[in-house]
């Protein structure tokens, strides 16, 4: 659970969970199919995507306008030339780190792909919650990250022990979020 300094849930926060000790091979989750970073209404959807190292990500454009997706982040530099639909093959993210996405035509479009080597990961829902079932017994390191979180990264790490009982980790942010978590509705100025 991730809540802001007023106790309200914070959505679109990456939660990455890594066992502190080596796990038996059977505990490793199965390889997932390619993830999807969609483009709708001139926004990336989701705005924050978390994937494991080596995962391919598809970038379908379901907008009525063309996009040119790019990133110059150290974790992954790539460009997808002008397109609609899904003409490009998935992009493989093979290094951990944060990848900031942009569109060379629409500067207001910003998206994030958090590439992690954690065993378990996901993003919080609207109420700030993220849950996992059937986590093997053991000790885990939990890291959270969000584009709007202003707290120091060192304060966003916890260690928990999991056994047969449900375990909960609560991150309460001490600093206000850096920007509104929700994007504004697009101007209704008919500026096409």
């Amino acid at each position, binding site marked *: 659970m991730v809540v802001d300094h007023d106790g309200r849930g914070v959505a679109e926060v990456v939660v990455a969970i890594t066992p502190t000790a080596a796990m038996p091979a059977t505990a490793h989750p199965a390889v997932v199919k390619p993830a999807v970073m969609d483009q709708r209404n001139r926004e990336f959807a989701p705005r924050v995507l978390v994937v494991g190292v080596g995962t391919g990500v598809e970038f379908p454009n379901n907008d009525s306008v*063309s996009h*040119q997706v*790019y990133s*110059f*982040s150290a974790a992954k*530099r790539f*460009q997808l*030339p*002008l397109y609609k639909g899904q003409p490009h093959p998935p992009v493989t993210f093979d290094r951990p780190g944060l990848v*900031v996405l*942009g569109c*060379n*035509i629409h*500067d*207001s479009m*910003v998206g994030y792909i958090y590439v992690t080597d954690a065993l378990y990961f996901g993003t919080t829902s609207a109420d700030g919650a993220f849950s996992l079932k059937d986590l093997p017994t053991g000790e885990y390191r939990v890291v959270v990250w969000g*584009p709007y979180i202003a707290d120091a990264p060192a304060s966003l790490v916890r260690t928990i022990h999991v056994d047969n009982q449900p375990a909960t980790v609560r991150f309460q942010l001490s600093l206000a979020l*850096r*920007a*509104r978590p929700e*994007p*504004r*509705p697009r*101007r*209704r*100025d*008919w*500026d*096409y």
Partner: protein
Amino acid sequence: MPWVRRLLLVGLVLWTGAAAAQDRFSVNGDVDLRWVQASGETSFLNGGLGILRFDSDHEGFELGRAFLAPSWRATDIMSVNAVIDAYGDGDRNAVDLSEFYLDVRPFPTGPIRWRARVGAFFMPVSLENRGIGWTNVYSITPSAANTWIGEEFRTIGTELEARWLGASSGYFGEVAVIAAAYGWNDPAGVLLTSRGFGLTDRPSELFGGLGRPPLDFYHEIDRKVGYYGGLSWTHHDWLELRALRYDNHGDPGAATEAGGSAWRTRFTSLGASVEPIEHWTFIAQYLDGDTTVGADSLGPQQFYLRFHTDFVLGSVDWAHERLTVRYDDFDTHEVRGSYAPPVDQTGHGWTFAWSHRFGEHWQSVVEWLRVASVFPPREELGESPAQVESQFQLAVRYRFKLAW
């Protein structure tokens, strides 16, 4: 500038032919029909010294504007754009160009994104005229400041922009530095002198003119390169600041055999757009500058005009509606020169606009504006220098976009 015209025509032909087989060609179009009621002095567009677009001899049904804005994305980073207009008001050409330029945007390889425009285009100064072809998204008629920019200025040259993309550094905003070098804008200042500031949605065309007899604005007379430099800062998605310094670097002593003169026109524009809460927008812009014509050897007879205008605008939108109110203030002052009476103008105006969008393609806008101004040269037309003009417009607009 006949060679420019030939170049543009050749470009258009090549562009149309090459684009036929592409999947990267789009056309935005707009037809804007008006019902107008106006009172006050004859508009300067019709030979008077009224500062609005329409007057009592030009009421009823009018063509507001019809334009086509084709765009061809020639490569992934390069597009060719044009705006082709018709106003139906007897301009020199029934159909003309207001913009024609190449836009180059390389993919960013770092936090600085470069962009270049080459051709003829509007300078990035208005926070109102955000639509294609200098269209105003808040009302029909732009402010006095942006009316004037649309009338007398077009960048015919090159503009370079370096934009710092803050998202890559965790900052939700951008900072841009803009610089441009251009020519063919030496007459800029002649309309401001002969009429003062106006409030119209009638920008000039590249090959046309404004007024009776028409004033032209896009000539190179002194063979000197003008420039502008600007800064813009976007903070999150609710604050945008813009500053721009313009100097056409004209030689006020230069003139053509036909009587055309180069004006040295300089101004500074500062603008802010704030959206403190959803659906509310507030814009303010301040523009201050001067213009000079006549050789330096004329001494006190050399014409020198200072000018200033500012406006504040508030706008709220909900569902398919937008309500806007704006207050304009403007003045010009003949510091030196031999005009008698002097071309000193003072004025202010209120604009109220209500737009309603119905469906994807249709929009209606009701606008009423009232402007009071004093301009002594009106005496030469047998009219009082002080005039109060008002104008009611109902616009019905149809817009479309086609893409191949």
